[in-house]
């Protein structure tokens, strides 16, 4: 009964989304407020129906309704409670339900303010949002129906992919999809701007918060993905340039470019065409990412093989790109009256260069990701493009971006005078050079590491310089230090929110640089009582133990670790054996610290418990990547605070 109800709900939502989209177009075209209002209510109804469908699917998981194919494939009687809930979005069908549900939520929320503030744009934006929703609902009803029956129902389900039994996997897809779907909102308003010919700033100022929110969740999704990879996959890394990671990283890069270039349009009326193109590109890349992930065209650790869905996404992507390019061409004449760049040394050109580098990085990632496909199709040669390519090409681009992160916010608009440059950059440059020299003196030899650390110090210097100066002005006016600082952050929350986000990125950069440069590892086979040493740590093997969990068996290695004369601790890396899997899954154990993490992975072991092979890693500064994520969160919150009234200031 529940599956039929769910299927019916989705069909009704599809009908309503199509109808609403048509009504919104008609309402916008002939200026009929009643039609627009009807479309808005249709969007509300779609949201309610999708919430119901989501609840029904969750219910099917909780009730072990194995007559539903999706439930039978992604859970079993032993799956713990939490993972039965998160199993709902653990695979293809459910993840599309989650995606559409979030998009419907955004659509409803957007209507609350936009229909008052942007009467002309809103109907068209609503039409686009509902059309995208209709596409996802079509996928759910035709290509990947979550409520499809399995006849006869099995006695027990197959179980969730064990790698997904982790808190990281509860939150990672949610954050990532909030990011992906979030970019639909600025895209929808960009299309509305193109259709109506209102190519001014309205669509940008209206969607500014949405863009920041989407960008933030996408960043968070990537970071949680890295954290999951680090503590679940057992290779000690957090980023593998896997096609699926790349799929999420590309829209992040273009979205970041968009976030910066809109500031130039708001301030200088430049780059209008570029901004529209960027947001279209970003949205298209979210679709392309989904296509890569879901179609199985590219072999990847977490690609699901689903042919029909891939074709759907490719078709929709083609439609989006064609319609968008058509609209851009149609409005081509309107972009002629662009403002012009005054000088090479100016904030405009710093931002422009930042955009060029970000798009270049996105293109590099794109090219490396699809190159194996091209090579096989054109030359018939199977190749793989791995981390060395991506690191080699993108690291210089990222270093350039870090440099610009210091330059952009402080250099003068229009044309920077030598005095402006000296005043703002002499100190930070000296700091950066000093930091690099100090690191070199301490024995750092890699040019890339030195460059990364020096640039990070330089940018930190610019941020500190700016904050100190602005705070000092307030202190001179008689305020106390802390209120002065708080007041500064509050009144210019956009600027300083951005600075805090930059600090977060810098902290992440330090974590990435440090872990790449200074991590060490070894692998050893130990008999009971024997110990291995690495970087001052002593790791002693004390034996094996077997434990049973509700849905798997665990072989736990007991290791006593100590450092010098310090206290000892017991660490228990394990191997988990799931009945539905051909191979065991490694369960990492690690102690994290601000300087370094000790990270143990159990390898091969003797069945009698006399011997075990263990991989020992000392991963340096990795924790700072996660701390950077927290700082980035604070910065985003600061940037999103409502702008204070200027009159009161």
């Amino acid at each position, binding site marked *: 009964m529940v599956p039929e109800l769910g299927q019916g709900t989705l069909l009704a939502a599809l009908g309503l989304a199509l109808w609403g989209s048509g009504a919104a177009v008609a309402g916008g075209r002939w200026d009929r407020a009643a039609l627009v209002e009807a479309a808005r209510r249709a969007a509300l109804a779609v949201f309610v129906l999708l919430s119901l469908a989501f609840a029904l699917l969750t219910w099917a998981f909780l009730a072990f309704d194995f007559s539903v194919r999706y439930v039978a494939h992604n859970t079993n009687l032993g799956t713990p409670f939490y993972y039965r809930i998160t199993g709902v979005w653990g695979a293809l069908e459910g993840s599309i339900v989650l995606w559409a549900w979030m998009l419907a939520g955004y659509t409803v929320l957007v209507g609350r303010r936009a229909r008052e503030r942007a009467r002309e744009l809103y109907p068209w934006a609503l039409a686009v949002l509902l059309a995208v929703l209709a596409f996802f609902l079509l996928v759910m009803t035709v290509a990947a129906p979550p409520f499809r029956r399995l006849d006869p129902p099995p006695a027990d389900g197959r179980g969730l992919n064990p790698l997904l039994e982790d808190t990281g996997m509860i939150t990672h897809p949610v954050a990532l999809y909030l990011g992906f779907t979030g970019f639909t909102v600025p895209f929808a308003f960009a299309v509305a701007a193109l259709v109506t010919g209102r190519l001014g700033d309205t669509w940008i100022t209206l969607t500014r918060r949405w863009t920041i929110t989407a960008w933030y969740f996408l960043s968070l999704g990537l970071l949680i993905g890295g954290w999951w990879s680090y503590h679940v996959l057992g290779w000690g890394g957090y980023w593998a340039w896997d096609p699926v990671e790349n799929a999420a990283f590309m829209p992040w890069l273009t979205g970041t470019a968009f976030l910066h270039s809109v500031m130039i349009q708001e301030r200088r009326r430049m780059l209008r065409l570029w901004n529209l193109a960027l947001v279209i590109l970003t949205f298209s890349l979210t679709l392309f990412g989904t296509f890569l992930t879901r179609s199985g065209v590219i072999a990847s650790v977490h690609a699901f093989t689903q042919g029909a869905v891939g074709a759907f996404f490719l078709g929709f992507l083609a439609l989006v790109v064609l319609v968008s390019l058509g609209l851009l061409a149609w409005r081509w004449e309107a972009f002629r009256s662009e403002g012009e760049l005054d000088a090479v040394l100016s904030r405009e050109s710093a931002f422009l260069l930042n955009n060029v580098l970000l798009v270049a990085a996105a293109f590099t990632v794109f*090219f*490396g990701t699809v190159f194996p496909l091209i090579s096989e199709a054109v030359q018939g040669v199977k190749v793989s493009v791995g981390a060395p390519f991506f690191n*080699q090409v993108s690291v210089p681009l990222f270093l350039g971006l870090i440099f610009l992160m210091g330059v952009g916010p402080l250099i003068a608009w229009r044309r920077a005078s030598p005095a402006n440059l000296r005043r703002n950059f002499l100190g930070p440059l000296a700091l950066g050079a000093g930091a690099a020299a100090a690191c070199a003196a301490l024995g750092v030899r890699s040019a890339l590491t030195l460059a990364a650390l020096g640039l990070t110090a330089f940018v930190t210097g610019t941020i500190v310089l700016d904050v100190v100066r602005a705070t000092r002005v307030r202190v001179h006016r008689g305020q106390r230090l802390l209120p002065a600082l708080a007041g500064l952050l509050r009144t210019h929350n956009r600027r300083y929110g951005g600075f805090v986000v930059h600090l977060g990125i810098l902290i992440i950069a330090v974590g990435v640089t440090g872990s790449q440069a200074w991590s060490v590892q070894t692998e050893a086979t130990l008999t009971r009582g024997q110990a291995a040493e690495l970087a001052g740590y002593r790791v002693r093997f004390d*034996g094996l133990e077997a434990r049973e969990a509700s849905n798997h*068996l665990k072989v736990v290695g007991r290791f006593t670790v100590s450092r010098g004369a310090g206290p000892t601790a017991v660490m228990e890396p394990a191997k988990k054996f799931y009945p539905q899997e051909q191979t065991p899954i490694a369960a990492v154990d690690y102690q994290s610290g601000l300087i370094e993490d000790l990270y143990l992975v159990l390898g091969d072991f003797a069945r009698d418990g006399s011997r075990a092979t263990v991989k020992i890693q000392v991963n340096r500064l990795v924790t700072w990547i996660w701390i950077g994520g927290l700082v980035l969160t604070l910065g985003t919150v600061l940037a999103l605070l409502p702008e204070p009234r200027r009159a009161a200031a």
Partner: protein
Amino acid sequence: MRRRKLLAGAVVIVAALGAMIYTGLTQSVVYFVTPSELQAAPVAGKAYRLGGIVSPGSLRWDPQTLALSFALTDGKATIPVRHTGTPPDLFGEGRGAVVEGRWTPEGYFRATLIMAKHSEEYRAPEPGETAARHRELLRTLQQDR
């Protein structure tokens, strides 16, 4: 004038990016080869991914030194492979494997990465099959304590 400057800048940037991508690709693309293809034209020092079946009787692993050696075959040619580390689960004689690494002048393939081939299709365990295996593992370990 300004337009021309911008255009020149764009050309320089695109050319630089193109050059970076081109050198990146030529240096780090890894070619998939079969044992026959590698035997026909081995280039020492070049990175390959080599796929084949682990020849029966060729697998040696010393848990103390972690030295792993085996031969990969496609029926026509057989390539000796050496690696340091633990063999992955599912790796074994008569099974498929893909290794990544370089051909050495000494006449063997030095692998830095070993991937055992999973069967692509999900196969439901026979009733009780894996469970029985797991119970046995559990028993041996518990007896031991």
